């Protein structure tokens, strides 16, 4: 099991690196898809099969394909940003070293206690639920009862993103003729003129 974890996480890391470094945007989107697939395999290994499937469907099926579509539509040329590559290495490396140091600082000291505390918070009822119900049932039961507030707020966030997207992109041009359905329906009989075809 642990070997599988190493394989998937290693692949995910390598392909994540390739997403950033590959020159061709299409390649990097494809590597992004590979990252998503590996991560969903990792989630599957945790036993959360529903989340893994959702991850695949949403990220790979929708978002990444949309990315790919946009990249192909835009016809982005292979950009020449390699010149700056060396320029950013020192600062990026420094920051990532700091984070690595932090991670080791956490892991060394308290590797063992994490699980101990986590298990404490699950009540016996919840454990029972986890054993006898499917993933999706447990998720639905929690999401629509205990955390319904979060669900509603997420809905509001989606509403905001919809309004935002419309506001920022919709242009109301004056001289474009549009179909005004309300006006068509509203039109009275006397507004319509019968036109006889011109005879020669």
């Amino acid at each position, binding site marked *: 099991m642990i070997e599988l974890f190493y394989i998937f996480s290693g692949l995910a890391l390598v392909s994540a690196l390739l997403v950033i470094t590959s020159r061709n945007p299409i390649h990097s989107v494809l590597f992004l898809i590979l990252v998503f697939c590996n991560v969903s395999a990792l989630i599957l290994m945790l036993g959360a099969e529903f989340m893994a499937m959702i991850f695949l469907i949403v990220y790979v099926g929708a978002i990444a394909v949309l990315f790919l579509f946009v990249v192909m539509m835009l016809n982005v040329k292979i950009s020449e940003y390699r010149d700056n590559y060396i320029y950013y290495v020192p600062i990026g490396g420094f920051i990532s070293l700091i984070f690595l140091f932090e991670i080791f600082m956490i892991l060394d000291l308290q590797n063992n206690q994490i699980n101990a505390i986590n298990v404490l918070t699950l009540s016996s009822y919840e454990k029972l639920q986890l054993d006898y119900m499917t993933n999706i049932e447990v998720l639905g039961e929690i999401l629509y009862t205990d955390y319904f507030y979060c669900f509603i707020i997420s809905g509001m966030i989606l509403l905001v993103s919809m*309004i*935002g997207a419309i506001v*920022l992109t919709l242009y109301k041009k004056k001289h474009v003729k549009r179909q005004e359905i309300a006006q068509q329906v509203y039109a009275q009989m006397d507004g319509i003129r019968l036109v006889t075809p011109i005879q020669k």
Partner: protein
Amino acid sequence: MYPEIFLTATICVLLVYGAFAPKMSTISHKRKTQSIINNNLFFNISWLVIFSLTIALFLLPAVNGSSVTIFNNLLIVDDLTTIVKGIILISSIATLFISMAYVKKESINAFEFTLLLLLAILGLFCLVSSNDLISLYLAIELQSLCLYVVAAFKRDSEHSVEAGLKYFVLGALSSGLLLFGSALIYAYTGTTNFDQLLLLNLSSNLDQAVTTSFHTGFLIGIVFLSFGLLFKLAAVPFHMWAPDVYEGSPTSVTAFFAIVPKIAILAVFTRLYFTVFYDIIYIHLQSQGSIVFLNFCAIGSMVVGAFGALKQHKIKRLLAYSAIGHMGYMLIGISTGTLEGLEALFIYIIIYIIMTIGTFSVVISLRKSKNISDLNGLNQANPLLAFSLAIILFSTAGIPPLAGFFSKLFLFFSAMSSSMYLLVIVGIFTSIVGCFYYLRLIKVAYFSQQLSLSDTRYLFKSIFVTKEISILLGIVFFWLILFIFYPSPLFVVAHKIALALCV
């Protein structure tokens, strides 16, 4: 919870109204042009939003010292939330008046603007009363998504779009930090709920074994969480976005940024620092000096705010740096970790909000309000406006008889009583430097070279003070002057807030 539910319903109804009203009116009045209809629609919706905010003000529950958690402990209602929500409502009504004046001048013909502000207010409400890391994160996302869109609202202007994009990218980074911090806290405690975290911290105080078990990771989680919040507050190491965003976005949006969201984020920040993590931050780590980073943020913000503003030529950029500086003073109140500090913090932020409303209502009344030199000859063109600007700026700088002086005074007192002399010294020094640039604005408005008569007449015509703005300015003006005679209501409010947190 009534105000939130009411606001949500209002948003939905107004959205439908805004979407369908233009079509209705094109059918009934064919002669009116589209822009007039849109403009009318904007004002209709703005007034409706103002009405609904006023109603929400009356819907706020009076809790009187008790605290209630609702929605499976995801939200909390106590004195802090009620009072802060009231302040948010009042200040956002003022901001809406300001934005209406702006729209009269600049004509952004889109009703969604006000609705997005309303959604942001809803997000701030949820943020103030959040009692769980999940609801905290969701509320922050809700309000900041609205603000990203609103910052880029003037999409014809390159500055505005740039501001929106910058704010979006950096805001996403800070949300990432916040989420990472929350994940670490969850990993090391197994809970995201504030009450349970509080219990855990209290028990860690008693039991040395538990303490050592989660210190480092938990602490890093707290630090990341604070980073995310400090970013939203534009405190110093995370202040880079503020000047650009303030400058680029439309002035009414800048007013909203400067006035409304800060108190909500400060409220949740103080809830985290003064109840949830109080023991771990102020008792455990005081000895190890881990609160140093907060002191660093405070000092850094004060210094950057004072010295960054010195060489600015744009009014809005200057106001952004002044906001950073004020945030530094407010962080003093948090880093004292005492009841007096907390009270002083809330007195400071309320006075700051009132002063900022005043400043922005003056700025919005000027037709051209980009450079500082646009204030030239304001005294000749409109002496009353110039005088109120002068009083507001004197108060912001902290000149004695005005309200701004007292807010600084209380903060410095509280810092002195918890023997943080370095913070006080830096604070006094930077407020002296700050005086300089506020006085420079007044100097430009009063003592610049004399304008010719035609120029004065032109300037007089270009200044357009709406009725609402003038009432607002009058209230702010007299409040700032007369605060010294009757300050006790504000003290009572601040004391109530502090008690709600520290019980």
